[in-house]
């Protein structure tokens, strides 16, 4: 039996603010346990949470980048549940007045995956279970998160992965989070149900919690869809429950039941005032957004003329795109810059993380100096590649490796003036060429080769000479 996948994704993203959402404690990663804490983020009675402006700004940035409507009035709610990672026994979140609503992400196919809402909330602490005891570190408690909830518009494992990938890229571009799934700064929960094609009703859905890699999202959706299909095919019913994806066995299994814990009894947090962001501020934040990744990709292809494959390799890493554009700003050509990045620089970077970080030892200006030598045909592309490799390894500028006497050619301008010089110096030979004695051109070649020590491009010189002689 064939089924249709109905899937939505909830994504938690840690915001790259300096301080926590409701107190001035640092959000810096690591540190000795419970050293980035104060009465607010450890939930001491009588402490007063005060909302961080940057959190609101970043969440609005995310909303605008995902085509959302921004709610200019918003408030915080308490989500109640008892577990030691939450010192107050409630999480401060948003329930019925989220900051952003009704956006979308467009997939390559043109299909839009709706964004239901984006709200802000605080992260929980970290628990370590060991020999019958639980040890708690509240350094992460109160670190700001946004939760981005999609509509159940996703209908395949590939779409699920593409959605998460695009979301990650957009969030990285606007600089609100590094979105490192392995380190937990981006985590996805996947909701999934099956239905018969054309059936308007939804089937019973399950939720797969805390998936921490893009490829696992795709695999988890496939595994869960197969598991549910097997149940339905056998005439059974899917049980609504929370699942865990195990990458080792590539299987989805139920988590221990949280027994009826879905009753979070939300209510407005009386400690935190309702807040408003006027339209002018929202417009200001919109103006501050950088060019978004998929606009950039289109521009690389349509305006700069890069091939789709090359454009895609460059735009998907924010730092690489910046380096590429900085190099162009120094006057280097699009084609050589792009090719040297993709072929030579990337060959030094094996992992996605390395490309994302793009820690290289030369500046865009130094890189441009090399590219321009290739642009002017003073060095061929092979020499450019090997020289670039040496520059990357040593961090030294191009002059260290290529001396003026190493240049294989001379610039077009220099060659043209040399050709003029050669004609002026040999008026008789030039006249002979003009009158059909073609071999006389060799006199001019001799002159040029002597002057350049044999490094001039002789075919180019011939074209130029003939043009100049005809004039």
């Amino acid at each position, binding site marked *: 039996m064939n089924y249709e996948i109905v899937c939505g994704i909830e994504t938690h993203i840690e915001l790259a603010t300096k301080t926590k959402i409701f107190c001035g*404690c640092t959000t810096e990663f690591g540190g000795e346990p419970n050293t980035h804490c*104060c009465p607010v983020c450890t939930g001491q009675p009588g402490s007063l949470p*005060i909302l961080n402006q*940057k959190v609101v700004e970043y969440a609005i940035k995310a909303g605008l980048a995902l085509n959302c409507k921004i709610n200019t009035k918003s408030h915080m709610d308490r989500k109640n549940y008892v577990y030691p990672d939450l010192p107050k026994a409630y999480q401060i979140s948003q329930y019925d007045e989220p900051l952003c609503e009704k956006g979308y992400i467009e997939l390559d196919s043109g299909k839009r995956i709706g964004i239901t809402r984006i709200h802000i909330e605080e992260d929980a602490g970290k628990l370590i279970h060991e020999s019958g005891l*639980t040890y708690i570190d509240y350094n992460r408690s109160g670190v700001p998160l946004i939760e981005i909830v999609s509509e159940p518009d996703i209908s395949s494992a590939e779409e699920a992965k593409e959605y998460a990938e695009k979301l990650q890229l957009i969030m990285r571009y606007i600089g609100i989070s590094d979105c490192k799934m392995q380190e937990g700064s981006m985590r996805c929960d996947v909701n999934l149900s099956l239905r018969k094609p054309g059936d308007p009703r939804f089937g019973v859905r399950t939720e797969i919690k805390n998936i921490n890699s893009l490829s696992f999202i795709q695999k988890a959706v496939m595994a869960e869809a197969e598991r549910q299909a097997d149940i339905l095919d056998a005439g059974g019913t899917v049980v609504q429950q929370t699942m865990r994806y195990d990458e080792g066995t590539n299987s989805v299994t139920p988590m221990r039941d949280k027994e009826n814990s879905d009753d979070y009894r939300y209510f407005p947090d009386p400690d935190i005032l309702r807040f408003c962001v006027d339209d002018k501020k929202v417009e200001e934040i919109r103006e501050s957004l950088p060019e978004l990744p998929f606009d950039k990709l289109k521009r690389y292809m349509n305006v700069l003329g890069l091939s789709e494959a090359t454009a895609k390799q460059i735009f998907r890493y924010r730092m690489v795109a910046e380096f590429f554009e900085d190099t162009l700003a120094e006057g280097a050509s699009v084609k050589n810059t792009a090719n040297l990045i993709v072929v030579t620089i990337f060959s030094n970077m094996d992992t996605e993380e390395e490309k994302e970080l793009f820690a290289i030892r030369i500046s865009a200006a130094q890189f441009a100096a090399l590219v321009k030598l290739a642009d002017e045909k003073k060095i061929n592309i092979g020499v450019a590649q090997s020289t670039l490799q040496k520059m990357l390894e040593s961090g030294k500028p191009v002059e260290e490796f290529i001396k003026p006497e190493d240049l294989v050619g001379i610039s077009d301008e220099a060659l043209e003036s040399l050709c003029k010089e050669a004609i002026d110096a040999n008026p008789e030979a030039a006249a002979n060429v003009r009158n059909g004695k073609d071999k006389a051109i060799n006199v001019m070649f001799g002159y040029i080769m002597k002057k350049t020590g044999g490094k001039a491009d002789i075919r180019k010189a011939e074209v130029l000479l003939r043009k100049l002689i005809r004039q």
Partner: protein
Amino acid sequence: MFVSSGDLTAAAVRKGVRIMAISKTEIEKLAKLAKLSFTDEELERFTAEFDEIIAFADTVNQSIEGGTEQIRSVDARMVSFDDLRPDEVVPSLPNDKILSNVEGYNGFFKVERSKK
């Protein structure tokens, strides 16, 4: 209004209608959510006490035209974006201060094992 959840209650609150008495089952459910266990005798006592507290809240509710929902819409105290807290780090408390009221271990809070 916070203890008895559900749309029905919320609607009743909005209309300023007297909420029906809280039941023992509801107290049991709340205790379970709070991970607390009570004897039957305690449950009976809490049910009666909760009922009194809610009746009091109800009196307040009924004295406001339009119910407690009205309070929020009337409440003009709203903070603007510019008045939110600037994102500037202030020193955290030293670890021994944070742990001064609890039994700690190597800088951690230590509790009995709890697993979801």
